[in-house]
């Protein structure tokens, strides 16, 4: 909310400086968002007297003025304004002054060969209005040499943010009340211009919707003269950022801005019969003051005459029945609209207005009569006319909340000691009635007060939050205890392991374009936003790979040679009963050149599926998965190359990870060049370590290396070309579990010497002697066992 200091001082008697006022506003919870000081923006502009005006020798439309600045010799100014003439008074910007409308600094310059010292200004140039037809003309009594800002009485404008709990501060008077409570001055009583009311209100007013509109007050004024508002009113509205429209409209805005009290003025000539607040009928339409048509439904409160809807309750009036410049007889509306109904209606219609903001937070139920009289008085005073008596339908909420307050709570909750006297004084200045037994009656305008904690807040904010001293939280004896959960430890370790293996951690959006998300899932139960910020951010991701692919694509488009990224985050699925099922996941994407072309190795190399496998195994190991027991199986998903991808499982159903090369069709869908390798680890599938019972033990089992040295034996087998190496290894390892501790492939070969349909696999078998070293005979027997076992998977020993 914006207002000028002048306006504030209409309601607050204070000597405080601008700085003191803004400091106080911040301190009491009315956050200052900005201060505009026209005396700063108008520095260098002063009241000046044009002594002579001569035609410019070289330009038809320019004049050369001699201007008295109030000090020293007159200066020469070239001016193009048609109204510039000798004898007038206006506003001169001197060299060095900055024109508010365009930020240009004025300089002494030659215009068409004639020196000009400064500029005579138009209203638009000084941001004082739209007028740019000529320069500002000041009255004859304007004091030459005076600062224009001072002359104009322009006062600093403060912009404060009012939190939703303070409907009472949605008017300047409420802000003044808060400042007065904070010791910044004295609140002035509301001055209501007197007027004579005669005769009953000729228009019947009623409310048929006591929930949506519990109170509807009104009054007719006949014989008014609408027109432009006086300067004082225009200045105030402009300081609040409101454009003056006409006297009658401006006065309702004044009432709203000064007292937080929205009102409406109808042109009586355009109303038919009585006026009624009622529920709208579904489908009823209204052309509102903003010239847009709204369709109402039966949850909304409408104001209607006997023919039609003329307003949306608490939000906006109708275009057709609003006052015009030629309106003479008017009906004033001061109503109390229900906050919740007003809010719901406004949201449904997508219509935000100053009135709605106030009604949905709750206007002061005790300010209906006063507000109506104030508006009437102002209209009669400024626009003339004869007022009728007020008419009242319904009544606003009147039950005051009473809170039993324990002043000790201020210390216990607020952490600051405030004497009872001061607590009482603060509450009373804010309009609370404090009984001797500390039963506190809240003013009706403070609908935010629910209980004692709210009163603590009132006391503390006015007393000063800066007086709250820091108090250390009690801490446990000794060293702080560990707090991380097993899941947190796993994620931390895994994240650093991934980075340690050369991957950059990325964080990508949780949402994906719909087609991308659908490409990456087999299920159709994805979370799709109703109101995405864009179509690219519509569906919650079912996989971490697409977000990383999109990042890799952006990088490639930027010319990056390689992208090695991982992300540790969640995948989102629908769980039971439509609850969210969010699964911790790690995704890796390896794209671009694994190694650049180089002097040692020649060509650049790409990532392959074994890079993906290495990453998968390394990271699963870091995550504490039993990697020795993992099975390499298929079905990595359609997004992967069918022959170069796999899953890692513990048992046939528990998929811990998938890895491999991204399918060329997927790359095409992402408009990317390949090859690209990817990995996805499903952290929720990793079996949790069993928590040990009893006190924690960090001791590991004893280290017992075998006494005898192990020996290795090599075997080369011819196997069917489609035999998985792991099948051969598993058979070999299983053939003599006592002596064979390991078997690994060290060569795979097809080509010369290997028959069609076969491949050669060479394996190194590690044998661990137990009690005694192996004898030749024993080694021979083991070798025979290995060869016999291998034959079962179709392997024959190469001669």
């Amino acid at each position, binding site marked *: 909310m914006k207002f000028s200091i002048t306006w504030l001082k209409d309601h607050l008697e204070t000597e405080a400086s601008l700085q003191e006022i803004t400091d106080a506003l911040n301190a009491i919870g009315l956050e200052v968002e900005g201060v505009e000081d026209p005396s700063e923006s108008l520095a260098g502009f002063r009241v000046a007297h044009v002594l002579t005006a001569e035609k410019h020798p070289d330009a038809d439309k320019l004049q050369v003025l001699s201007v008295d600045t109030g000090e020293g010799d007159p200066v020469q100014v070239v001016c193009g304004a048609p109204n510039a003439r000798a004898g007038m008074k206006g506003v001169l910007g001197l060299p060095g002054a900055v024109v508010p409308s365009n930020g240009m600094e004025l300089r002494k310059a030659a215009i068409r060969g004639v020196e000009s010292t400064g500029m005579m200004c138009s209203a638009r140039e000084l941001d004082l209005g739209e007028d740019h037809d000529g320069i500002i003309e000041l009255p004859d009594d304007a004091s030459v040499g005076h600062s224009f800002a001072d002359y104009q009485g322009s006062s600093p404008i403060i912009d404060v943010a009012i939190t939703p709990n303070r409907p009472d501060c949605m008017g300047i008077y409420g802000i003044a009340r808060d400042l007065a409570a904070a010791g910044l001055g004295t609140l002035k009583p509301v001055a209501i211009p007197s007027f004579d009311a005669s005769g009953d209100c000729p228009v019947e007013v009623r409310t048929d919707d006591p929930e949506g509109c519990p109170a509807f007050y009104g009054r007719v004024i006949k014989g008014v003269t609408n027109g432009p508002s006086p300067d004082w009113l225009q200045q105030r509205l402009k300081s609040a950022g409101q454009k003056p429209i006409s006297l009658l409209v401006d006065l309702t805005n004044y009432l709203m801005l000064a007292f937080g009290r929205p009102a409406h003025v109808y042109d009586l000539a355009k109303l038919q019969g009585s006026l009624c607040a009622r529920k709208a009928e579904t489908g009823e339409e209204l052309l509102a003051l903003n010239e847009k048509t709204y369709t109402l439904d039966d949850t909304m409160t409408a104001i209607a005459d006997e023919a039609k809807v003329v307003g949306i309750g608490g939000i906006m009036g109708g275009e057709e029945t609003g006052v015009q410049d030629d309106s003479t007889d008017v009906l004033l509306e001061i109503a109390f609209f229900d906050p919740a109904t007003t809010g719901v209606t406004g949201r449904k219609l997508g219509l935000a207005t100053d009135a709605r903001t106030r009604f949905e937070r709750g206007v002061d139920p005790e300010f209906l009569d006063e507000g109506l009289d104030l508006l009437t008085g102002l209209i009669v005073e400024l626009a003339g006319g004869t007022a009728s008596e007020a008419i009242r339908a319904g009544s606003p909420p009147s039950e005051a909340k009473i809170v039993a307050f324990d002043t000790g709570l201020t210390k216990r*909750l607020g952490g600051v000691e405030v004497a009872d006297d001061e607590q009482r004084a603060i509450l009373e200045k804010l309009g609370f009635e404090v009984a001797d037994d500390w039963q506190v009656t809240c003013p009706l305008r403070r609908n935010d007060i629910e209980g004692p904690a709210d009163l603590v*807040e009132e006391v503390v*904010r006015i007393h000063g939050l800066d007086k709250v001293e820091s108090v250390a939280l009690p801490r446990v004896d000794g060293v702080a205890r560990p*707090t991380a959960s097993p899941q947190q430890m796993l994620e*931390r370790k895994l994240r650093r392991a991934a980075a340690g293996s050369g991957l950059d951690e990325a964080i990508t*959006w949780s949402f994906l374009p719909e087609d991308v998300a659908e490409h990456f899932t087999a299920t159709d139960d994805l979370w799709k936003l109703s109101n995405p910020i864009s179509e690219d951010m519509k569906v919650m991701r079912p996989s971490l790979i697409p977000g990383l692919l999109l*990042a890799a694509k952006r990088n490639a488009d930027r010319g990056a040679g390689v992208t090695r990224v991982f992300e540790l985050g969640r995948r989102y699925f629908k769980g039971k009963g439509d609850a969210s099922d969010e699964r911790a996941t790690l995704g890796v994407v390896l794209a671009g050149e694994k190694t650049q072309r180089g002097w040692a190795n020649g060509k650049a190399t790409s990532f392959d599926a074994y890079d993906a496998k290495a990453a998968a195994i390394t990271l699963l190991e870091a995550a504490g998965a039993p990697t020795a027991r993992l099975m390499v199986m298929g079905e990595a998903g359609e997004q992967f190359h069918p022959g170069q991808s796999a899953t890692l499982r513990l048992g046939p159903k528990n998929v811990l990870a998938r890895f491999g090369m991204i399918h060329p069709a997927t790359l095409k869908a992402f408009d990317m060049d390949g090859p690209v390798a990817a990995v996805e680890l499903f952290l929720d599938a990793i079996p949790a370590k069993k928590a040990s019972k009893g006190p924690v033990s960090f001791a590991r089992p004893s280290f017992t290396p075998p006494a005898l040295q192990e020996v290795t034996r090599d075997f080369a087998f011819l196997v069917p070309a489609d035999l998985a190496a792991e099948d051969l290894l598993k058979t070999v390892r299983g053939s003599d579990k006592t002596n064979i501790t390991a078997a690994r492939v060290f060569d795979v070969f097809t080509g010369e010497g290997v028959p069609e349909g076969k491949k050669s696999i060479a394996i190194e078998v590690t044998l661990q002697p137990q009690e005694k070293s192996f004898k030749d005979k024993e080694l021979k027997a083991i070798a025979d066992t290995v060869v016999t076992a291998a034959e079962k998977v179709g392997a024959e020993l190469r001669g």
Partner: protein
Amino acid sequence: MTELTDQKQSALAAIKASPTLDALEEQRVAALGKKGWVSLALKTLGQMGPDERKEAAPAIQAVRGEVAEAIEAKKAKLEASALEAQLAAETIDLTLPAPEQPKGSIHPVSQVMDELAEIFADLGFSVATGPEIEDDWHNFTALNMDESHPARAMHDTFYFPDKASDGASMLLRTHTSPVQIRSMKEQGAPIRLIAPGRVYRSDSDATHTPMFHQVEGLVVDEDIHLGHLKWTLETFFKAFFEREDIVLRLRPSYFPFTEPSVEVDVGYSNEGDRRVVGGHGDDDGHDWMELGGSGMVNRRVLEFAGIDADKYQGFAFGLGIDRIAMLKYGMNDLRAFFDGDPRWLAHYGFSPFDQPTLSAGVGVRP
């Protein structure tokens, strides 16, 4: 004997002059080989009488020793120069680049989350998590924002068309505060926790992204008041920025879930185009910057979470993680956080070995 001496002299000269190991070997064979002159001389000893032998043997042995020693010495010399020559031939250009090991990095948001966990662990706070897809009861209602609450509209909420089984609307959590509710319901009081994580607002411009990170703090116990809140935030920021001159300003504010509610500002100064936290915001060249919201947990929230609000009270706060990361480490563009640009990640990311610890300080110096 003279003959032997002469042979020795010439042999020693030949050995010395041997240009190669092969030439030296020839000298060795000529002298010490089976038929070498030294060997032949030794054989003559057998034919001598004892007295004669007694006199001749030491002399021959001495010659043998002298020659053998000369050969060994020469051999070592020749081998050394051969090795030298070989090594010289093996010289490589070490200005050529070595194979590169890719350096990975930790994202600043993760690093700062670890820093938060480390500092708050010392103050006895555990780390809690909760779902990002929430129902409106946990995100709003239980936080004292019923359906018609104006503050709801200010949250720019992303909604799903889905309803929970109890009819609640599903949405993306707009803050980490629902974790307060879930944690209090699960653990009861007393409780001390932080809850970092992703949050979502339907807002996108130069300084706002539709997804960002927040950390929630919650302390509920019997005698907790605003002074404890102030101390906790001060203590945290001093540890986080490793500066003793952190000055906080508390301003009254409004959040439906706290009462009283407090906005937290920190004093800072501008160094170049960068904000540097520290100092009193009212001092020359300083100003205040909003860091987050906080306050004493509204008793309605405690009641919603099943806590005895007559016995327990506490405070809660919420801070933007991305924002405090930017302040600490000097990033100026929030959008870059979520781009996955390896250049940015290498520049602002952290070594995996920079695990925050209290002993080393939780900040990483450039």
